[in-house]
């Protein structure tokens, strides 16, 4: 147990375990005793009075405090627990916001429908769909085929185009009328834009980019797990006192459920009353589909990813050959975009796209944490690198140590030789 120069036993932070949630700071009674630096809490030993409140508040055991206290500090009760219980009561059902593009439901919404089904079955409740748009009844039917029990639909020309305030207020109103306990949204451009609006109107808790969702059966709470600090830590977030518990999930993180066209469900039309005033106007929409050869790296089943170690445009055709052979596409790390070899739309990682191909082949990708968060959902990872200690080589299922100029041509030759037999089997 550390002591300060006054001989007082004080608390100490273990930086590696600190997640920067600031609960200790909120609990500390001495204004100058603690601060945050670089996302980590710091205790000033000479100012710390050794009360141990930070230790009690820490959710991650990142604080060492061993002094025997006279009074055992009671765990601070959640603020406004009584009021909260009232607001939690009466909320039932797992709702999914259904995104509509050009008259079709977005795939991520069906992925969420599958997850919602699983959560609702655990809770013994219904799967609800929240659907806004114009002439979207066929989408409502699709929702039922993907596991939805009741679709709440607001079908109006006003909802033809997505606008933050319009949709935000409408979905918030749906929540107030239907009272779901959980609301899931896709972490797409629309879902992220919308979720913050809805959560703020409802004063609800919202967790972005969850990779795992489960239920704490005892407390009937949604356990929302997301990567934090560039994916090096997983954090499970809960929302005790507010409903709905809101969460966004990136596309292709949850499994697409099997579509059952014979499934029965109910479609209810909601009248949401007056629309928001002074809305912005969309003047022009420019689709991006044909930009950069129409390649969408998030949809490719196989992705050959070029890293700094293979950042040489002379050898790009070879890597494209490898990708094409397996019906895949070529992506890259941030360094390769910065070098100007491939455009930004091909970038995998935190500031690029999140991908989860069946087979990821990293060529000269060292695997900085920012890159790893964008691809760790891949089914199989093959890494080619001269450095066997590169992080990518550590997480790879197959690590090929060597020069990619030696390895890739041999891979191409070997795969070409094997493909006919394989294709023969599968078709």
């Amino acid at each position, binding site marked *: 147990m550390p002591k300060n120069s006054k001989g007082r036993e004080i608390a100490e932070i273990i930086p*590696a375990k600190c997640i920067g*949630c*600031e609960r200790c*700071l*909120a609990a500390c009674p001495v204004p100058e005793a603690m601060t*945050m630096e*670089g*996302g*980590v809490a710091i205790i000033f030993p000479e100012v710390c009075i050794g009360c141990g409140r930070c230790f009690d508040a820490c*959710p991650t055991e990142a604080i060492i405090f061993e002094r025997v206290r006279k009074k055992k500090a009671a765990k601070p009760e959640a*603020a406004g627990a009584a009021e909260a219980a009232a607001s939690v009561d009466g909320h039932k059902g797992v709702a999914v916001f259904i995104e509509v*593009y050009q008259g079709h439901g977005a795939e991520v919404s069906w992925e969420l429908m599958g997850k919602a089904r699983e959560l609702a079955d655990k809770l013994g409740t219904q799967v609800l769909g929240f659907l806004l748009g114009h002439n979207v009844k066929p989408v409502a039917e699709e929702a039922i085929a993907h596991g939805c029990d009741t679709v709440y639909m607001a079908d109006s020309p006003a909802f033809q185009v997505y606008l*933050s305030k319009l949709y935000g207020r409408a979905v918030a109103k749906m929540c107030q009328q239907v009272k779901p306990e959980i609301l899931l949204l896709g972490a797409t*451009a629309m879902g992220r*834009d*919308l979720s*913050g609006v809805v959560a*703020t109107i409802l*004063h*609800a808790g919202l967790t*972005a980019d969850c990779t795992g969702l489960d239920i704490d059966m005892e407390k009937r709470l949604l356990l929302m797990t997301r990567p934090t600090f*560039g994916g*090096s*830590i997983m954090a*499970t977030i*809960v929302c005790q006192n507010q409903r709905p518990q809101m969460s966004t999930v990136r596309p292709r993180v949850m499994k697409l459920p099997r579509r059952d066209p014979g499934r029965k469900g109910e479609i209810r039309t909601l009248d949401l009353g007056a629309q928001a005033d*002074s*809305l*912005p106007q969309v*003047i022009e*929409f420019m689709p*991006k589909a044909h930009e950069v*050869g*129409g390649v969408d790296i998030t*949809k490719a089943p196989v992705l050959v990813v070029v890293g700094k170690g293979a950042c040489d445009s002379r050898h790009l055709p070879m890597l*494209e050959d490898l990708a094409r052979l*397996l*019906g*895949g*596409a070529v992506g890259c790390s941030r360094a390769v975009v910065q070098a100007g070899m491939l455009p930004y739309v091909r970038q995998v990682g*935190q500031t690029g796209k999140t991908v989860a191909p*069946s*087979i990821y082949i990293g060529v000269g990708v060292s695997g*900085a944490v*920012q890159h790893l968060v964008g691809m760790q959902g891949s089914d*199989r990872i093959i890494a080619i690198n001269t450095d*066997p200690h590169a992080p990518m080589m550590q*997480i790879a*299922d197959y*690590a090929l140590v060597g020069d990619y100029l*030696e*390895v890739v041509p*041999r891979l191409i030759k*070997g795969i070409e030789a*094997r*493909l006919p037999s*394989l*294709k023969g089997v*599968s*078709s």
Partner: protein
Amino acid sequence: MHIVACIKQVPDTTQVKIDPETNTLVRAGVESICNPYDLVAVEAGVRVAEKYGGKVTVITMGPPQADSALRQCLSLGASEAILLSDRAFAGSDTLATSYTLAQAVNKLNATEPVSLVICGKQAIDGDTAQTGPGLATWMDYTQLTYVVEIIEVADGFITVKREVEGGTEVIRGKLPALLTVELELNPVRYATLPELVRSLRQEIKVLGAKDIGGEPERYGLKGSPTSVKQIFAPPPHGGGKVFETASDSDKVIEDFLSTFFEKESSILSEVLSSDGSDHAQEQ
């Protein structure tokens, strides 16, 4: 025109490494930087002010050390800087953070009405992208996220180009508006020497919960519906097979392919059967 840029000081995540032995974060000595998206926001604000007249006020909520991030923004041409720093704000999630920022913008509105608030698309430490929409909602401002171009600010309206699913759109909305901006909106200038000197000398206004008013129970931990229940190390992916190709590359790569095609035959046939579908390269 009064423009507000909201910024966040974040740990430089590019410096964060994982200790391979203990599988924990090595964060000792990691520098704090201004969130890169927010620098683009400040630059965008300064450009609008230069083009249409006006000034930029930068706001951040954070510990006293966040002062340095604000000074960097002053050096880029912001006129004033406000640090929201109070123990009462500790433990804020995105809802409480956006509420706190909204109270600060309200306070500014009382003396110098704000026409435009600009935030980075997201912060690199949390990646949530929730604070901007939250702030727009508290303020009831026009919300325009993922902005890649500011086309025009005129007659009480703003026209921008923004990224949406499957493309970009040009959209015109009423001021006051809140924008969240993408990195490609504009490059960030280098500070000139006089601006650097000014940024170091200028006073930064520090405001606490009492200064900005608002409902005390909406600040910090109390105003934050979400809480961290548990943290754990991500499940290891690795434990993979290593193939040293340096010695006899032909043989080793053959070995690898034989292993791969045998063990992963189901994945491979799935991949190849979907060949030629919607993802196909059109080159």
